[in-house]
């Protein structure tokens, strides 16, 4: 045997939790829900040991509002839930976005609508990227597809949140949360500049007092100006933070588009197609907002057709069509209701739409 592996076997939920600790998360509040329960389970022990605070809140709503307070005090903070629980948090998320408080929100999606089931799904795409709460705000939305990527993106999420003073959503699903895979827990290194937190409410002795609020009634123009400011901030994020991975796209006639666990399963189908001589590639958005539209346009210049695959009945497909301005036909294969696609089924769809 060669040198011992640096990798250890963990579940996705555990990887995410350890990444949060390594990135210096000092506060977690959450309320239990399957399939993300290993997050609070892990953090309830490990976070206090690392010097942080863990709170099992009385509800999802309480948990997100605790983040508002924790973030206002300057600490890195996170909450985690699954679809119905994330719906409950939406009011608080809108307030946090309005207050420009950095924090990390995790959604390990399950089947919906309603209480749905406890299996994995990707039915919360719209809620995640189009604004699940009220008002003109945006979340940075990260969609990992392997456990190693959960580890890295979770650490990055805290950096993006601080850098842009904006909440960041990690959009996983029940499979990514529950599956186990070897992961190398690399050392945390900030991925962007971390500005001094000049908004923190930590006592104003010797300085001007600070106010964090989201109600802007007077003067009448205050909210217009604030929204103009937010618009510029979001445009800045859009110009800097579109992340995307392409696989075997260079000569592809058909490009499959998928995110998260679905992209990984689709990659297996792309390999099957290539083995049969079909020129098929994969494009995988890593940021769902901002959506990597230029990459999609570039791919569409080469490809004759796109095929979107989702664990839903079709949500990201709308952003794909918008990105390429409907310049190519966009086919769809989806599994709704808390069920997962297989590489074999995606391959069947590839063969049926390939020209």
């Amino acid at each position: 045997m060669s040198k011992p592996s640096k990798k250890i076997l963990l579940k996705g939920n555990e990887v995410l939790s350890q990444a949060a600790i390594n990135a210096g998360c000092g506060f977690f509040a959450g309320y239990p829900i399957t399939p993300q329960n290993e997050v609070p389970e892990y953090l309830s022990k490990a976070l206090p040991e690392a010097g942080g605070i863990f709170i099992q809140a009385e509800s999802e709503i309480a948990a997100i509002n605790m983040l508002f307070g924790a973030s206002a005090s300057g600490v890195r903070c996170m909450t985690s839930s699954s679809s119905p629980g994330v719906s409950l948090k939406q009011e608080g998320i809108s307030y946090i976005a309005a207050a420009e408080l950095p924090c990390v929100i995790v959604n390990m999606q399950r089947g919906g609508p309603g209480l749905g089931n406890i299996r994995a799904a990707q039915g919360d795409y719209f809620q995640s990227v189009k604004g699940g709460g009220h008002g003109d705000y945006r979340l940075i939305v990260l969609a990992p597809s392997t456990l190693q990527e959960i580890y890295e993106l979770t650490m990055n999420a805290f950096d993006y949140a601080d850098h842009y003073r904006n909440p960041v959503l990690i959009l996983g699903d029940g499979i990514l949360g529950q599956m186990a895979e070897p992961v190398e827990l690399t050392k945390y290194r900030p991925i962007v500049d971390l500005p001094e937190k000049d908004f923190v409410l930590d006592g104003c002795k010797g300085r001007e007092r600070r106010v964090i609020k989201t109600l802007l009634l007077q003067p009448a123009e205050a909210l217009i100006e604030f929204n103009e400011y937010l618009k510029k901030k979001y445009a800045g994020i859009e110009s800097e933070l579109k992340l995307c991975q392409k696989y075997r796209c260079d000569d592809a006639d058909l490009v499959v588009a998928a995110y998260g666990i679905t992209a990984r399963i689709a990659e297996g189908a792309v390999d099957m197609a290539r083995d049969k001589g079909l020129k098929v590639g994969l494009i995988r958005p890593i940021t769902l907002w901002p959506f990597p539209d230029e990459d999609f346009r570039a791919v569409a210049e080469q490809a004759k057709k796109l095929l979107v695959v989702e664990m839903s009945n079709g949500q990201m497909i709308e952003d794909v069509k918008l990105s390429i301005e409907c310049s190519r036909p966009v086919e769809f294969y989806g599994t709704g209701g808390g069920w997962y696609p297989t590489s074999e089924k995606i391959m069947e769809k590839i063969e049926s739409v390939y020209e």
Partner: protein
Amino acid sequence: MANNQTRIIIAGFGGQGVVLAGNILARAAVIEDKNVTGMISYGAEMRGGTANATVVISDEKIASPFVEVPDVAIIMNQPSLDKFEPDIASGGLAVINSTMVEDAGSRTDIDRVSVGASEIANSLGNARVANVVILGAFIKRTGILQPRSIVRAIDELFSTKKPAFIEINTNAFNAGYEGAKSV
């Protein structure tokens, strides 16, 4: 077992340790620096109900942690054999706990290896190690992992919380390794 990829399902009733067996296998694969995914069925399971864990071990990247068509089915009881035998890949393998499986199935295009896992576990003094006995038979037959990797995985798993269980689990693995019989 195409493309150096082995898709394994471990099935039994809740309490037979299929999750732990999957965990040991996956950890042993990590020790050998292989790619591996583990997925435990997390439906509304209960003690006495059916339980299964899937493990994919590969030298290549693994696309999906799910196993629709297992190359190997490690079967702890009769209902699990009845349920999963039809899914096994042609040319695949069923590893059977013969203590709890009377009818080893009718497929003629798969191989079978059996071990009296529950009986051996009882003779070792703990019925609960039948899951590790059957892993012994599986490793003996397939050789996809080194026996010493399994022993090390057992050591890692139990050393911090339950060191008293290391010895009996190691013995169970060795007994299964010796007791495997082709059917």
